[in-house]
């Protein structure tokens, strides 16, 4: 068979490229989430940036089944694969509200998985079932005022007292901390046991001694509520222990993998979203007699950004594929998270630059993306921690 010029595949830049991890069902899910987000969430984003987003979002999304996409059907989930959760994190960016995306991700992909993985049947019934319905809201407490990257340095103590534990300490930067009904709390139960001295608890937030000290003001993610919490002689029954006593450190290290994975996916989606908006702007905005996107310097900026975004996406998808296939790819997750967080911040910054003075103005919404994205190089493990994890995985 001989090829002729007419047979040569011509560029088709609009052509849809389905990645091998996705099926047609994922595509339908994607479209239905996007329709919902654009119709019901996006119109409120400006307001929510001012006041944080309201709890009805959880209820509404619970009603639609979006809070349990990859969770087991027996607890009210949709029983889908991990990729369906990925689809949600990609489509939620259309709300144009980084804080909202984060609040939801903390609920579905950070606090819920450890309950499902390590919880008792009672705990799952008590928290996961209503959480998937959007009736109860979850949060996760790891970081403390004096212990961030160094998780082992936390000071919150849980001391056994008969059939109860008494918890004292404080947690900070807690997303959903003001609205949550329950917190997955990391504590130290044995200060002499090193990494074997940590225990997780499910602590209802309405217990006496749980104090929501203040709403923290932040650079970005304004739609999310971020709390400083104090625990003063909070008494919980020993049925509040999540997982094994003394295994909390390992439980939370496991949890962090899913957190980083979904965070990386959110970064790719956020970067793509601001890229698309900026591309539109560059085609409309004219300077020196033509649209600014048609100047070579700007065109190449887009080429560079598109390459970074696509690369991060491929890292996320390949890693998600490993994840879905039962691997525990700590190294690759760390790489994807590091890469995606960095490029999201770089892309957002470049998009401000392309917008010029308008980019610096609140009205265009681009500076907000940069402020929101900037968190990703810090949250869920800083860039530096990612590098350390990767380096150590090679025996360094």
């Amino acid at each position: 068979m001989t090829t002729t010029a007419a047979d040569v595949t011509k560029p088709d830049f609009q052509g849809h490229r389905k990645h091998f991890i996705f099926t047609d069902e994922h595509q339908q899910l994607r479209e239905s989430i996007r329709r919902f987000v654009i119709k019901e969430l996006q119109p409120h984003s400006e307001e929510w940036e001012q006041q944080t987003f309201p709890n009805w979002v959880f209820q509404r999304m619970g009603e639609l089944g979006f809070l349990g996409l990859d969770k087991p059907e027996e607890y009210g989930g949709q029983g889908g694969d991990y990729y369906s959760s990925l689809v949600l994190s990609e489509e939620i960016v259309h709300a144009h509200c980084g804080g909202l995306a984060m609040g939801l991700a903390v609920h579905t992909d950070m606090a819920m998985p450890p309950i499902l993985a390590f919880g008792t049947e009672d705990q799952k019934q008590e928290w996961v079932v209503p959480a998937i319905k959007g009736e109860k809201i979850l949060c996760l407490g790891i970081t403390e005022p004096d212990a961030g990257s160094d998780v082992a340095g936390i000071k919150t103590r849980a001391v056994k007292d008969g059939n109860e534990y008494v918890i004292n300490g404080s947690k900070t930067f807690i997303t959903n901390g003001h609205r949550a009904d329950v917190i997955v709390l990391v504590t130290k139960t044995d200060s002499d046991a090193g990494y074997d001295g940590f225990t997780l608890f499910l602590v209802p937030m309405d217990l006496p001694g749980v104090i929501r000290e203040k709403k923290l003001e932040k650079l970005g993610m304004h739609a999310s509520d971020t709390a400083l919490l104090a625990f003063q002689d909070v008494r919980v029954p020993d049925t509040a222990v999540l997982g094994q006593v003394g295994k909390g450190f390992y439980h939370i290290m496991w949890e962090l993998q899913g957190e980083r994975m979904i965070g990386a996916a959110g970064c790719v989606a956020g970067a793509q979203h601001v890229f698309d908006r900026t591309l539109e702007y560059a085609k409309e905005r004219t300077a020196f007699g033509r649209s600014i996107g048609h100047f070579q310097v700007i065109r190449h900026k887009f080429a560079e950004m598109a390459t970074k975004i696509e690369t991060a996406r491929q890292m996320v998808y390949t890693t998600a594929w490993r994840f879905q296939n039962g691997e525990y790819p700590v190294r690759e997750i760390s790489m994807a998270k590091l890469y995606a967080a960095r490029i999201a911040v770089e892309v957002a910054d470049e998009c401000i630059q392309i917008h010029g003075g308008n980019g610096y103005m609140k009205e265009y919404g681009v500076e907000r993306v940069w402020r929101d994205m900037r968190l990703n190089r810090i949250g869920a493990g800083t860039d530096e921690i990612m590098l350390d994890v990767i380096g150590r995985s090679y025996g360094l």
Partner: protein
Amino acid sequence: MPRPIPPFTEEHEEFRLSVRRFVQRELYPHASEWEEARWFPNEVFERLAELGYLGLKFPPEYGGDGDVVADAVLIEELAWCGSGGLAAGIGAHIGIALPPIWRFGTEEQKLRYLVPGIKGEKIAALAITEPDAGSDVASIRTHAEGAEGGYVVNGSKTFITGGVRADAIVTAVKTSDEGGHHGLSFLIIDRGPGVESSSLEKLGWHASDTAHITFDDVFVPAENLLGQENQGFYLIMANFQWERLLMALGAVGAMKVAFEKTLKYSLEREAFGRPIGKHQAIRHKLAEIATTVEAGRDMTYHALRVYLAGQDAVRDVTMAKLLTQRSAFEVIDTCLQIHGGNGYMTAYEIERAARDARLGPIGGGTNEIMSEILGRSLGL
């Protein structure tokens, strides 16, 4: 064995290991000598042919295997030979010059060039670039004048990998005075009277014979027209996708080799009382490298999958090429840095890898051309 990433299968991963063993045992030991000689012997092609490596992606009826994915494995693993020039010399023949003959050639041309090419008996090169026409392909001046029974070619080509030894030079020529891309055709020019090649000295790629070729009233019979007259631009377009994929795969391989070598070095070499790799600054450098390699690999394999699916892969391939060529040079430069003074010395072979990698952002379309393609793909 780690789970093979699509499109690779377990069989491909086994094949990968056997290719690697061959490259390490039979090519690597000679690399330094061939670098110094500015030439690798033609026996390399014969040996590769014997193993069936030259025809992996070509159809069985011409002596090949019909497995494009296996060819991708070979290209990635050739990096273990430690000589970019050697890998390029092999790649130029099977990955750049023979594919257009396979795709656009007549049956008779395939029998004359592809079959002996797969056997390693006849070496081919692809000649597009000219002294005054690099990125701007449309400004090619080498001219083919219609003559009785064929064409008479005059002009010159440069930077032609394998161009000193090539028996057949697949050459882009102007066959019409029409401007732009429309007057381009390809001719398969046999080495013979009027064809002169000379070798060029370069920063890296020392084992490869990179030629300046002149054509002085060279008669080319009409049956050596490859594809349709004046439609050569499409041949270039089709060919570039595979060529750029090869470069991306090669860069991924080269980065992996440099990383593994440097990782080993940093665990052995001590300073301030411990292996240098245990110092955080070096640990993080290596973590950065590993991340960059993973990024390049994931992007490249994606482009490969799109290409294999028969979809238009221009954007994906262009991104993979842009990303990996830049990454490889940066990564290998960092590897050189981690080697310290030893990195600067020839004996550690890392300076060679850095020199070799420097071509990536230029060859097969510069970074700037890649950005141009990508920008235009976005409607800019």
